[in-house]
């Protein structure tokens, strides 16, 4: 099984191939366009994180001791970043998510999107991912 750390390493590796910001952004836009990453029934008011700029929806389920995240956004670049976050955190054990770090975002040059000033919902999304992990971990205990 791929651990959170190995997936993060993979992503850092992939991003290091890009020569400039344009390639990085084109990749994220592609990710954002291609993924249907949440079922329509979960795009509800309860699951919404309203940023000042873009909206983010997050849904989490526990299956066989692992959390499955699905999410979406109304902005493509935000959605691209969501796709990366889901690749890292979905299908993982709650305890591993709780103990993981998000430093890899800095390393792939997308730090500015996780700045609180962007108010795009991503900071809250990561907080939400961690909260789900804590909640499901409590269930497992």
């Amino acid at each position, binding site marked *: 099984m791929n651990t959170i750390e190995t997936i993060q390493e993979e992503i850092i590796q992939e991003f290091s191939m890009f020569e400039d*910001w*344009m390639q990085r*952004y*084109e990749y994220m*836009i592609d990710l954002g366009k291609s993924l249907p990453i949440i079922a329509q029934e979960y795009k509800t008011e309860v699951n919404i994180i309203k940023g*000042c*700029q*873009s*909206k983010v929806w997050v849904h989490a389920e526990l299956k066989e001791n692992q959390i499955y995240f699905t999410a979406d956004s*109304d*902005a*493509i*670049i*935000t959605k691209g970043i969501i796709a990366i976050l889901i690749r890292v955190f979905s299908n993982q054990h709650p305890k591993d998510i709780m103990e993981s770090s998000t430093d890899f975002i800095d390393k792939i040059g997308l730090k*500015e*999107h996780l700045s609180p000033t962007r*108010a*795009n919902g991503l900071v809250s999304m990561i907080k939400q991912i961690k909260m789900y992990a804590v909640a499901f971990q409590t269930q497992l205990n």
Partner: protein
Amino acid sequence: MFDVKYIRKDFPILSREINGNPLVYFDNAATSQTPQQVIDVIVDYYSRYNANIHRGVHRLSQEATEAYENARATIQKHFNIAYPYEVIFTSGTTESINLIASGYSPSLKKGDELIISAMEHHSNIVPWQMLCEKTGAVLKVIPMTEQGTLEMNIYEDLLSERTKLVFVNHVSNALGTVNPIQEIIDKAHGFGAKVLLDGAQASPHIKADLQALDVDYYVTSAHKLCGPTGVGMLYGKSVLLNELPPYQGGGEMIASVTFEKTTYADLPHKFEAGTPNIAGGIAFGAALDYMNAIGFEKIAAYEAELLAYATNKLTKIEDLKIYGEAPQKTAVISFNVGRIHPYDIGSILDQMGIAVRTGHHCAQPIMDFYKIPGTIRASFSFYNTFEEIDLFEIGLRKAVKMLQ
């Protein structure tokens, strides 16, 4: 002579590079940049005569007091205000509005009415909503047209003997619409209502003559006018300000204090509790001096050219829709391209060193009116150039191509 190349030399920040690209700063409606002349005034204050004002007998305090009061006089003169004590220094537009809202709290009764416009900034909506909740007064809204102008005939219908206050921005921050303020003021006065004019967006472009307008209250922030953040002004007619209770208690605002009773100081000190932003106030005056030396008519004429040039360029981009097409507007273009989210375009422009504002611009009711999540807003200032607009157009086309 208006020479933008010469003017740009005054603004050190404009020579910055972002990602190897020259900075193109088109977020002037959020905050304007600061010329060296104003920066120097701040440095000079802290280097030579930093002291608390209005109470020291020593030299530094006298110099600081004099400079601060001179700045007040500069503001008075700039806005053609009758008396210097009708200029209250505040931390900015938001505090100025809250000061008035709080001042009206004891006198408003259930059933009294307040009127605001549909194109207000949140800072000119929320304080009044809070005031209504507290007093039972009712908030009425002047609706707007698709074009982004106020429905003045409905405004007339809303006015009545119950109307106590009318709040409207001189210029809308999200759309750039210049509102017909003289008409708004005159009609309100016909019913004995008072008018507060939010000048935050207009003051960098239009020099308002407050006595000629006969407006009751006027507010703005220094940072919109090449000054520092954290300082602004409230103008109020002295007959009205004298009636209002103080906003905050503290030092500076008192005449005498005993544990039984405190008597308040006269204007403007009654509303200036505590040690103010002294360097900020002095720099506010210097910023007005700087802009007046260039001349507001020249500034407005040049900005109108920038607006026309940019509007012409942008309307040629396929699927680009401009929000706010009032016949009278300041150099602001709010727009979207097709169904592309403003955040996406803003993020890509940022990579190219182009600073625009994206989102709801703290004016959610306007976004709800157009049923959009937000817009991209490019706002120009007198130090911007036609070449920068060219760079912006190229960048925008590139962003759209990436995102489509």
